[in-house]
């Protein structure tokens, strides 16, 4: 049976179809997790996709974090399930407190759609476990608020725990320490501004996103890193 990937849809999300197409291309089954339903059902992995949840009104992710589904996503993450926030999804995860720091407006004060060069700096996340450190990837970015920031303690902690997953080789948006993506302490929750699903087909100009998504799916297929004794895949019971 193939892996089940839940893709969260808020009003205003727009990359959900792309995320589903990309993981289905790798053999997974994708399904929508509706923002108003407080469940992640029986999925093996969760993607919070890009877009403009609730129009990005107030602040990207500021309204979406209160959606019923986000409580279920937090539970899923707590139980070790792999969670990937892409672009607006990364912003939502930081607002929801699943990842530290915040994304502010780009240094150039303009929306930026281009292809960025990234370097994989940590392989302890579910997104990068299948890649070698130092791997260079060409992945599109597409955001106005992608300028990562965090307080000095948080940055020190991210560095000390090897949680800075990917960095920009040529920082396009002013992100602190060139950070393009980070992960949680356990490595199962990852957020990044670049869009791996947009680098998933030769006709799109890059297939560098495939290795990232494949790692993520492999993590979803691995036995759950449950926090409960006995290691049963607890998350499937919710």
């Amino acid at each position, binding site marked *: 049976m193939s892996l089940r990937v839940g893709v969260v849809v808020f009003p205003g999300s727009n990359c959900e179809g792309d995320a589903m197409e990309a993981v289905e291309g790798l053999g997974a089954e994708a399904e929508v997790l509706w923002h108003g339903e407080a469940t992640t059902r029986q999925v093996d992995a969760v993607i919070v996709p890009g877009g403009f949840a609730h129009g990005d009104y107030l602040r990207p992710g500021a309204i979406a974090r209160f959606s019923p589904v986000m409580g279920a996503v937090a539970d899923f993450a707590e139980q070790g399930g792999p969670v990937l926030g892409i672009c607006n999804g990364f912003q939502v995860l930081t607002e929801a407190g699943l990842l530290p720091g915040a994304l502010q407006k780009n240094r150039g004060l303009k929306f930026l759609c281009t292809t960025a060069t990234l370097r994989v700096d940590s392989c302890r996340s579910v997104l990068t476990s299948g890649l070698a450190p130092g791997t260079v990837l060409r992945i*599109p970015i597409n955001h106005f608020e992608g300028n990562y920031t965090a307080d000095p303690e948080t940055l020190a902690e991210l560095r000390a725990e090897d949680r800075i997953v990917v960095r920009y080789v040529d920082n396009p948006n002013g992100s602190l320490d060139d950070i393009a993506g980070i992960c949680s302490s356990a490595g199962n929750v990852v957020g990044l501004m670049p869009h791996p699903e947009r680098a998933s087909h030769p006709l799109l100009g890059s297939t560098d996103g495939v290795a990232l998504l494949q790692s993520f799916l492999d993590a979803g297929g691995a036995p759950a890193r449950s926090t409960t004794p006995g290691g049963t895949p607890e998350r499937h019971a919710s």
Partner: protein
Amino acid sequence: MDTTLHRALGLTDEEADQIRTILGRPPNHLELAMYAVMWSEHCSYKSSRIHLRRLPAEGERVLVGPGENAGVIDVGDGIAAAIRIESHNHPSAIEPYQGAATGAGGILRDIFTMGARPIALMDALRVGPLDDDRSRWILEGVVSGISGYGNSVGVPTVGGEVVCDPTYTGNPLVNVACLGLLPVERLVLGRASGVGNLAVLLGSATGRDGIGGVSVLASAGFGGDDDGAKRPSVQVGDPFEEKRLIEACLALLDAGLVVGIQDLGGAGLTCATSETASRGGVGMDVDVSAVPLREAGMEPFEVLTSESQERMLAIVAPDDLEEVLALCGRWEVRASVIGRVTGEGGRLRILDGFEGPVLADVPAASLHEDAPRYDRPLAAPSAPAASPPAAPSIADPGAELLAMLADPSWVYRQYDSQLFLNTVEGPGGDAALLRLKHPTTGRDTGRGLALTTDGNHRWCAVEPRRGTAMVVAEAVLNLACVGAHPLALVDCLNFGNPEHPQVMWQLSECIDGMAEACRALGVPVVGGNVSLYNESQGTDIDPTPVVTVLGMVDRLVRRPPGVALEAGTTLVLLGPHSSDLGGARAAARATADGEAPGPLPTLDLALHAKVAALVRRLVADELLVGVHDIADGGLAVALGEVVARSGVGAEVPGVDDPGVLFSEAGSRVVAVVADHRVDNVLALADAADVPATAVGTAGGDRLVIGGLVDLDVTAVAAAWRDLLPAALGWR
């Protein structure tokens, strides 16, 4: 009669008389307001309609031609493509951000009204020179508006144009095109039918924004003291509302819950209710008190003519209403029953409560179809001087080339160009190229759709007829450069004041030129938009027809070569040689008044078709390293762009006539060919009866063209890259 009211609403005395004849009585204020918006130039095409009939609209793939919300083409595999272009010139001149944003919003609604999911936007922008403060403000605002709205609503902007010229200083042009896809069987038309069915208003509440947008704003020129007072006629957009509206409407159509659907654009509720009723041959009762309002105290005429954005009108059977409301609720889209389809002899009645007093009672079709049609006087400009003007002298061709290079990426990097994983060739190339996937199953057809947007006011000012034919031809060649053959064209005709006979002559000539080129190249015109009264201080803009052409790549397995150059390759000129500077940008820059000299170079449409077919073949057979069409700025700019983009130098010897450098004669491309394939390419050109000449080689770190140009590649690249951001103060 009292002339003040109808004149204030933009109606002439004769038009007011005609309304009186239709009704058999004097119209009341509400009725007059409804006729004023529907009979505006913007809504009725009253000055252009008799000319538009001359455009060829037929083609075997055409499912829906002009006159509906969008043209629809059969693109195979059970998929239809809906395409449309529209102007939002006047609103963008007054309030650039919202003008452009709502231009994008409006064109999207035209597309999903047909049942199609919008998959791509293109925008063609024309403003004054960037040393003018106001032109910079307009360009930045327009780009921000398209970025802010298009990105958020979730439709990629895959291409467009940016042109800066003094002719647009007082009246910028913002033309936005949209492409959508639908399963053929879901095609819906904006028709009401079934007496007793309900008219349900979806989306935003109605406010006082955009009142008189089509009449006060879009159907009059600029230059008076009251331009600033027109600002309330500009609508305000909300992309988040539009995003939910798109999803809700497509879900309603998927579920088969609507009989007909129509967007609310120019002329608001008046247009949507009268058009759906008139097309369906029925009547409609509209309860003005049932329309959700943003503010208290709105008069019925304001409710009926407001252009508040993000609204749709769905015609629904009463039994389906509950399900419609539930589905809209899921997407948090407001839905209110505001009307009923009636059999009352095709009358559109506006009521205060369904059982309340009748506020207006008019034949629906009279608003939609009985608008006056004007055969306005035409006058060609006085004959040109007996002897053609001397060829302008271009003192420093290298400097001239550098001044004409402009990388538009400062603009298009602000647009999401990649959403939906379709974008094979995005903005910046000759044409955009998208993977064609089924809109509901997502199945990849292995084919591609290409889009290009083109215009050239300089050519059309010199000779509107041939200039427009050259614009169509250029668009077809742009498609060929990504391997696509043309399927259909939509046009946006931006002209000055139609009450000026010379402007009407330009419009008429342009339509004839477009018709000639479209017939010769086999491209049906499936829709269009006419924007008149583009004038400022009494001066009309240069005639600016803008075309968007949709094309297809039958087998899309590799990315097309693109505007690329590699060291050690050969540069081959495909198409005729020319040194004719008629209509050329470099020639205009060299004259004192900035006007390009005429006449235009000849255009052989039969040869053009052969060149386009050859280029398609060379791209499909993967025989090219790079390819770029020769148009604005001629061979010099084409070479400058490939050099700047690739960082590789080139040498083209034996050129000593600036005319060869800067001629904009059509039917020509620069092909970049690996040495071992040059003979093959020349032989194919010979067999296709297309002139082809190896003109130079790529490599080194200089761009050298005969004895005229000798520039460092880094200087070429810097000039190209920096022009736009530097002019705008961002670098």
